[in-house]
């Protein structure tokens, strides 16, 4: 992609994303098998999560069956049951809702704060930039596991702890990416034009700068949703995530831990689903990266 097309503002936009980028993504999907696989997996996952109440055969909380039934197509619970006799398939479908919600929520939290910091930092420069970026630096000392531990110690288990703990770690990714983008477009002609016609700082930032930083932010967003789902699984497995009664893929896996040798399916099936879904999101993100021509690593 050339610089001139990248900053061409004559293109239409859908949700702030230029339509030509969407066309490029469609092109990538048509061309690339990996991208197709990613799109299919992500679509299936979202459908299963959204329509879980309609699609799930049983109530995920009801102890309808004999406990620890092995998966078999002939039985009423095709993916088996957990130690309380609950249908694993239904729990997995409802678990997909929480896992997706937590993954999206965490990255939303991190991206909103990070993008705001990056925009302000890059736009104003000077001591504002210094102060904000140094503050972001400090977050490095708090890996998500530590934040989760402190939140659980203070508030007890809960979905929001996971969202905040995992999302917090991503603020700095988004801040850096956004800041870099802002710095690179600050000197563009249309920016000078926007300032000379007397738009306010907020108008320039949100109407001119933000839309032009959208592509790399979307790529990062996708990749981090995948990573957030893995982090959620780890926290739920450790008992630092959602309450054990709430099904998420991580907590289901955690409950299977005590039955690894008797009932392998309770931990293997949710784990496989996590793997397939995260793989799908990663492939999807890679396709976006290709389509939007965003670099994976910064060599500066």
């Amino acid at each position, binding site marked *: 992609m050339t610089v001139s097309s990248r900053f061409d503002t004559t293109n239409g936009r859908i949700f702030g994303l230029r339509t030509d980028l969407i066309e490029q993504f469609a092109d990538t999907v048509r061309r690339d098998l990996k991208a197709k696989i990613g799109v299919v997996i992500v679509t299936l996952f979202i459908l299963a999560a959204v329509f879980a109440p309609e699609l799930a055969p049983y109530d995920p909380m009801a102890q309808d069956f004999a406990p620890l039934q092995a998966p078999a197509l002939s039985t009423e619970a095709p993916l088996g049951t957990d130690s309380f006799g609950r249908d694993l398939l239904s729990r997995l479908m409802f678990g997909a809702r929480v896992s997706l919600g937590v993954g999206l929520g965490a990255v939303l939290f991190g991206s909103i704060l990070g993008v705001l910091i990056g925009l302000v930092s890059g736009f104003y420069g000077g001591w504002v930039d210094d102060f904000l970026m140094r503050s972001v630096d400090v977050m490095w000392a708090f890996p998500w596991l530590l934040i989760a531990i402190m939140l659980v110690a*203070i508030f007890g288990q809960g979905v929001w702890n996971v969202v905040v703990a995992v999302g917090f770690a991503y603020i700095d990714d988004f801040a850096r990416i956004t800041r870099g983008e802002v710095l690179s477009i600050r000197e563009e002609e249309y920016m000078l034009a926007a300032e000379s016609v007397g738009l306010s700082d907020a108008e320039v930032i949100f109407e001119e700068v933000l839309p032009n930083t959208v592509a790399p932010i979307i790529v990062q967003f996708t990749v981090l949703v995948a990573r957030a789902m893995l982090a959620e699984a780890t926290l739920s497995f450790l008992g630092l995530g959602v309450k054990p009664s709430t099904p998420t893929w991580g907590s289901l*896996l955690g409950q299977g831990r005590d039955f690894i040798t008797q009932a392998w399916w309770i931990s293997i099936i949710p784990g496989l689903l996590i793997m397939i879904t995260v793989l799908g999101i990663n492939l999807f993100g890679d396709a976006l990266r290709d389509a939007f021509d965003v670099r994976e690593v910064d060599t500066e």
Partner: protein
Amino acid sequence: MGLKQYLLKRLLHSVFVMFFVVTVVFAAVRSIPGDPARLMLGGDVDTETLQALRTELGLNQPLYIQYLRWLRRLLSGDLGESIRTGEPVLGSLVQVAGPTVSIAALGMVIALVVAIPTGILSSVRRYEVEDYLSTAVAFFGISMPAFWIGIVLILLIGVNVEAIPTFGYTPLGEGVWPWFKSILLPAFAVGFPYGGILMRMMRSSMLEVLNEDYMRTARAKGLSSNLVLFKHGLQNALIPVVTLAGIFLAVVLGGVVAVEIVFGIRGLGRLLIGSINRRDFPVIQGTVLVIAFVFVLANIVIDLLYTMINPRIKYGGGE
């Protein structure tokens, strides 16, 4: 700015960060609902005992005095005692450091040794079988939680290969080979996702470098392509990987803690989860502090590495 000044500045910054960490942890523990003295003593206690303990712990004093006293104790290396067992927190941490550090270190070594060469190979043989194969393996690595890899390993290898234990940890003091066997599977589980990330970074970083003008010039000048790769390319390609490798230490930490639980190893994971379940705040607080401290130290080490391999570094931190 010279190298010395730059390092001094980084060091000061780290001290500031550590001070900030200590303050946040103090504030966090203070905001835990409930009276620590009551928590320590449990349910039914008379007011006198409670008051005595409150005085002993300094809970009756103003918050800033408590904070300053806490800082002074920390500076002398005193992390306090567990309210359940009475053992010093630092002692418990030293005990669990053996297995946790062993697993994390071996995991990172496995990841580095496999991922760096594979990433280079993948970039040199872009769009060939080697590239597709290693990229596929890396994609699987970054798509699985480490602890689940551990569970799968136990089911696949532990059950079939008796020589490799799947439970517990053997200290290095009891022989190198038993130690190595006991941490091999957990380390692999921790290293696989980390290696996947590293391999992907190495590949794209190397691809960027291979496309740089000076690499093309070097090739045009007739340098054999292997020599070009290793003399010019690798050093430059490693620069972003080193910085990012540090950021992904959080992946290793989360991995180790959960993997230890899967393999029934008494390490940092068990200490942390146990202290949270028992609401043993001094232990939680001390462990969080030490981990944060290790992360700050790692940051300094990565900075040093970065300055060593990047000859073009601008110490001012400017753009």
